[in-house]
């Protein structure tokens, strides 16, 4: 009977050892799991800060890009005037004589010629000759009109070219803002992807931890089963009587029991 107790105690001690090994393995697995969580937290913080950097810098880039459009367009804005083209179109289509101060000055010069000559100065007024003088002034304006239309047309073309330049600058500005938005999205996603390999590593670590824990559990079960099986075998061997009615180790005729 003491031998059976000794065997049971031995198995018990062994099982405690195995249980401790299992617990240590579980603790190791827990530590790896906690480390994975902590690491993921570190990565998340780095990712958030990195994303904030990207957002801030792209906001600055957007502002600067807008300045590029404003400052660049501002240089050409005086030349970007389409009103001359509208006016020239109206004057060409209507075939109207040049107006405004140009017409006034030409007409006045024409009349001044008359008033400055003593031969004609008495003719100015509401008389048929006076009316003819006015008509001649208008004719002088009409005669000069094609030249001034050409000048206005040149200015109109220049204004259109300037307007086209400004339009292209503004178009490029919007394209750049679009590029920045796309680039920002790419940068942000790149940061997320950049975290990928490290997160994958954490995943592998977590898998390893689970595997470790599982193997430890398996080992414990296998070890415990083996120990119990061994105990059963040992006890069976110890309590089974031989052909002479003696238990194992108690046969006085067995020389082996006395060596």
């Amino acid at each position, binding site marked *: 009977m*003491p031998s059976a107790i000794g*065997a049971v*105690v*031995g198995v018990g*001690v*062994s099982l405690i*050892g195995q249980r401790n*090994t299992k617990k*240590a*393995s579980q603790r*190791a697995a827990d*530590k*790896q799991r*906690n*480390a994975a969580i902590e690491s993921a937290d570190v*990565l998340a913080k*780095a990712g958030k800060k*990195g994303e904030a*950097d990207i*957002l801030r*810098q792209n906001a*600055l*880039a957007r502002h600067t890009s807008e300045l*590029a459009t404003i*400052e*660049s*367009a501002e*240089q*050409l804005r*005086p*030349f970007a*005037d389409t*009103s*001359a083209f509208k*006016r020239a179109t109206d004057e060409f289509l209507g075939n109207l004589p040049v*107006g*405004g*101060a*140009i017409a006034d*000055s030409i007409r006045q*010069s*024409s009349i*001044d*010629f*008359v008033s400055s000559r003593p*031969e*004609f100065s008495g003719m100015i007024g509401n008389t048929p000759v006076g009316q003819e003088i006015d008509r*001649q002034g208008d*004719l*002088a304006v009409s*005669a*000069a009109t094609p030249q*001034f239309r050409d*000048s206005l047309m040149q200015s109109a073309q*220049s204004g259109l070219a*300037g307007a086209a330049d400004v339009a292209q*600058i503004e178009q490029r500005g919007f394209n*750049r803002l679009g590029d920045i938005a796309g680039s*920002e999205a790419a940068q942000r996603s790149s940061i997320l992807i950049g975290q990928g390999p490290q997160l994958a*590593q954490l995943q592998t670590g977590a898998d390893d931890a689970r595997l470790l824990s599982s193997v430890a559990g398996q080992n414990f079960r296998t070890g415990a089963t083996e120990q119990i099986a061994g105990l059963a075998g040992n006890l069976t061997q110890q309590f089974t009587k031989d052909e002479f009615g003696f238990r194992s180790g108690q046969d006085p005729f067995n020389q082996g029991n006395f060596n």
Partner: protein
Amino acid sequence: MATFESIDDLISRRTPEALGILNQGSEEQLRLARLGTQAGLAPLQEVDDLRAFEEQQSILGQRGAEAQEFAIGNIPESQFDTELRRRQQQQLMRGAAASGEAGGGATLQAGQQLAGAQQANFIQQRLAQLSPLVAASRGIRSTMSGLSEQGRVGEAQIQSGLGTQLANIRLGAAAPQVASIQRGAELSGLQGISSANQQASRNNQLASLAGTLAGSF
């Protein structure tokens, strides 16, 4: 030389330094880019003059009636032009006087046409004088516009690029931190397992001894 207690310590101290260096580098890059743009613009700004353009636009009536009247009234006339105008009219009158038509209607018409054409030519000459100046101003403004745009676009690219660089530094710094955390957990776990294994081994020996003793009784 700085000493570090751990990888965490190294990273926590070096990351701000690295970010600071990047920011400083970027600031310097921006400063130089702006200097470059300014260096390009400076000589052009000195000759940037829109007076000819404004006068042209005023004469053509693009700045309103009052401005047009003022611009035409203030076209400078050289002594030669004044003399030429006077002589042409005088020649017309002398020719008419020679043929006995000094006070006639044909002379009146011819004189008025001459005076009107002289004034029209006078304004056209001024527009012709202004035209190359306006073209030059337009060219200067066009170059300035291009330089401004390119300069700012370059700055925007630097600013946008810095975001990625900063983020990469932060992420790059996180990698060894993560590795350190993982390694620490792994080592600690392995130590625990090793210790437990040793204890188990001792227990097994004890169990074996107990079994042996049990067998001997």
